[in-house]
């Protein structure tokens, strides 16, 4: 999965935030819609799409979507 594809998949887990809001350097934890449900959805999405299980601590440790993408690839 490329970074661009990852961003699209990441954005798809949100219902109210427009897709164009999601960029490589988006600070996802600052989004209004970031909460335990969207966090859990992102964990499930990464598990389904990439087969990697990340933790809440991983999500907290990253700032941008690209950081998260790099962390997932490194696992």
């Amino acid at each position: 999965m490329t970074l661009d594809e990852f961003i699209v998949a990441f954005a798809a887990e949100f219902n109210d935030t427009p897709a164009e809001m999601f960029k490589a350097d988006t600070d996802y934890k600052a989004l209004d819609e970031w909460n335990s449900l969207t966090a859990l959805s992102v964990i499930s999405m990464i598990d389904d799409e990439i087969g990697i299980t990340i933790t809440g601590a991983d999500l907290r440790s990253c700032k941008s979507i690209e950081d998260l993408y790099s962390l997932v690839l490194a696992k």
Partner: protein
Amino acid sequence: MFNPFSLEGKCVLVTGASSGIGRGVAIQCSKMGAQIVISGRNVLRLNETLKLLSGERHQIICADLSNQEGLDSLIDQCPPIHGVVHCAGIPKICDVKHIKRDLLNEIANINEIAPILLTSGLLKKKKLQKGSSIIFIASISGICVSNVGESPYSATKGALSGFAKGAAFELAAQGTRVNTICPGLVPTDILKLSNELFSEQQLKDSTIGKYPLKRYGTVEDVANGVIYLLSDASSWVTGTNLIIDGGYTLN
């Protein structure tokens, strides 16, 4: 001393006894005089539990309840008992739109199907003596509340409460009672694992204030409810859900 909660002379099967609520239930019930049959998958950890039990004549039956062979093996080896406490369970966190058949099969198999089939098998093989008490460790998650990602867990725990009603009705004729205990959050090993999504501090901040009694539950809190439901003190109690949650569901 008058003690209607004594478990002297009773033999009780406890599943999931290698850790958490199951281990606590086994220990507390042994202190009340019961002879305990502890079951679980990990023989090393069952031996640790065994060492913590008061009194003697307790026994271990190692079995994996996720498959029929394991269930049959436990049922066959089980001595005649006066009570069974179904503690074996797993948490699974998943948001609704990512639920998959495999996840549902796994959590339902352990939390719901295994205890129901074990109950059925124990009855069929006449292992449960007249006047027995059957107890399912369900949860407030399901019949009372739920949370983000908890729907599969709630579904299986709520199912236990439903099953307990039907079984209570059917088994009343032989004097067998069937009840559930619905604990609030009790920090055990499995819960710590499932809560890794949030930091411990976050979890504490967000939840302890929701308990009017201002503390988390302990395995002993749950085990004390089990003692009541196993003992003759509850001989007119069947088909109920005993909520032990520090007042959580009052909110």
